[in-house]
């Protein structure tokens, strides 16, 4: 695990993991707002023409970004600049296989390392296709963050965990981003099952939109992932979204920190 992840997940409170799409709105300002508001880990989405696992909000963010001409080079530029401004906040690139592998896994892993990216989430490279990215990322010292879902059964879990790093991302609903939320009881049960199988921190996402939901998840998990709710704010406020992003981040961060104190 990167030292930034290690430091983050030893904080006294669970981590707020915040997702925004690169190139949608004023990315640098929004990233700064996330950090200022208390986000512990940043997921920067790489836009793709065909975001098959995403709901309408993030689909639109992808298209807005691509329509503005966002390139892979731009995204690494934003990542490197973020690392200059925020030396301690873990940064994760999240996206789809084709933009990540088009120049080869080694190229991508090398660029990640150069830009100071700590981890990568690739939606459509499951454990079975690990050779596509996994070896290159591990060799470059970049954590490959794997996804576990409600359909990941106990027999399959070891394969998912093999080669995984950073944290384990539990996708709490079988579905796409930004839609329905999972029942809290099912999340509690799943997190307990996952934590019994791995020492990696477990972060929970998909359908988490409010401070209350985030707090409920924070009582059992090591991290809470929020994405589409940020994207909605950026869609509404465009290039002037940063203050709104910061305020919403703070409301989530406060709820998550409060939750753990109650639990303790």
């Amino acid at each position, binding site marked *: 695990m990167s030292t930034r992840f290690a430091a983050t997940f030893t904080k006294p409170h669970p981590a707020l993991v915040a997702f925004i799409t690169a190139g949608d709105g004023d990315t640098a300002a929004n990233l700064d707002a996330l950090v200022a508001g208390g986000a512990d880990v940043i997921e920067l989405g790489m836009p*793709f*023409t*065909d*975001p*098959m*696992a*995403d*709901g*309408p909000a993030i*689909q639109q963010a992808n*298209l807005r970004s*691509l329509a503005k001409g966002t*390139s*892979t080079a731009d995204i690494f530029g934003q990542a490197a600049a973020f690392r200059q401004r925020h030396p301690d906040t873990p940064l994760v690139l999240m996206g*789809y*296989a*084709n*933009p*990540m*592998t*088009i120049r080869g896994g080694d190229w991508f892993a090398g660029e990640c390392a150069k830009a100071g990216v700590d981890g990568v989430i690739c*939606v*459509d*490279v*499951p*454990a*079975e*296709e690990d050779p*596509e990215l996994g070896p290159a990322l591990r060799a470059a010292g970049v954590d490959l963050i*794997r*996804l*576990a*879902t*409600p*359909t*990941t*059964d106990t027999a*399959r879990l070891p394969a*998912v965990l093999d080669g995984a790093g950073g944290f384990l991302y539990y*996708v709490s*609903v*079988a*579905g*796409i981003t930004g*839609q329905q939320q999972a029942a809290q009881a099912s999340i509690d049960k799943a997190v307990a099952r996952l934590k019994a199988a791995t020492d990696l921190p477990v972060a929970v996402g998909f359908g988490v939109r409010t401070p209350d939901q985030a707090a409920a998840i924070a009582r059992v998990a090591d991290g809470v992932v929020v994405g589409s709710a940020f994207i909605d704010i950026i869609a509404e406020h465009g290039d002037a979204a940063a203050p709104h992003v910061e305020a919403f981040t703070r409301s989530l961060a406060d709820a998550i920190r409060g939750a753990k104190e109650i639990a303790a």
Partner: protein
Amino acid sequence: MTETTTLPNSFRTGPDERGHFGQFGGRYVAETLMPLILDLERHYRAAQADPAFKAEFDHLLKHYVGRPSPLWFAERLTEHLGGAKIYLKREDLNHTGAHKINNCIGQILLAKRMGKTKIIAETGAGQHGVATATVAALFGLPCTIFMGAVDVARQQPNVFRMKLLGAEVVAVESGAKTLKDAMNEALRHWVANVHDTFYIIGTVAGPHPYPELVRDFQSVIGDEAREQILEAEGRLPDMLIAPVGGGSNAIGLFHPFLDDADVEIVGVEAAGEGLEGKHAASLAGGKPGILHGNKTYLLQDEDGQITEAHSISAGLDYPGIGPEHSWLHDIGRVRYEPVTDAEALASFQKLTKLEGIIPALESAHAIAAAERIAPTLGKDKLIIVNCSGRGDKDIITVADALGVKL
């Protein structure tokens, strides 16, 4: 790419146990779908080993689809071109008017075996949607068809057909609102409904085992053609020609002949307005990448963003191609040639006038390639062209292109 390819002893043994044809194919899906994909593969292996499954498949193909489809000697077209003898494999005569139904029968039998109670599919021109809605009606299962909003508008007769058959048609508004986006939306729906829903993919693409099982269900085309040409001519053909979008009709014809070294095989890609302009020729104009669950040749930019395809034939209007075709292309067993909208349009009319057969615009691409190649071969040579579908669905598009007001 840089990988060296060793020619195998047989071209018919793929994919490997991980679903790869050389570097192509694979299972590039979200984790939520992965357990289901593995389950589908287990059920398919069991079905392959079960004589009752094959018996039911064969029964439905014979009595419901109307197989075997004829192998027609196109005598007037042959005389007109003055070269090789041209035979047409008449998939246009199948129930629902194209080869698509062969695969739908196979997959709905698998859905039944797996205990799935809902069917979904994507469609471009609507042919696969109609075939899926047809088998869903036959088996009494509710069915949802995802279709790009642009395609819904330009294929109204097929949309109405699907609705008559009891299917719900969802007009997909994302992206360019065509086949690629319909497939994205079908995958999104599937991910949220994996517990009870079977996705009938319409071509030899998507995550393993789809390219394999669709090929196997479509191989009835080549198996029959082989028997029929032996009966008619007493020998194997010198050449096979078929149109390739995703490539299911083509692989169905080609696969049983892949190990016959003397049979030359030609796949025809849609060159649209020409390879310099808008087209759908993934092999001629694309490079390997990952989309919709598999690695294959794709139309894309240097950052791996997928670019829009174009073909006058909605069934070929897709920026990718089945992974087995990508492999056959790379190892050189199959030669792929481009045919433009204009050439296909001319052949559409020519076949109609000379043989009294209105071919699908997809099939017209293969006819155009045959027109190009046949005159260069001796009269003793034999070509089988896959007439993959009938062209009734295309008459509005053709009238438009010819400037005729209906």
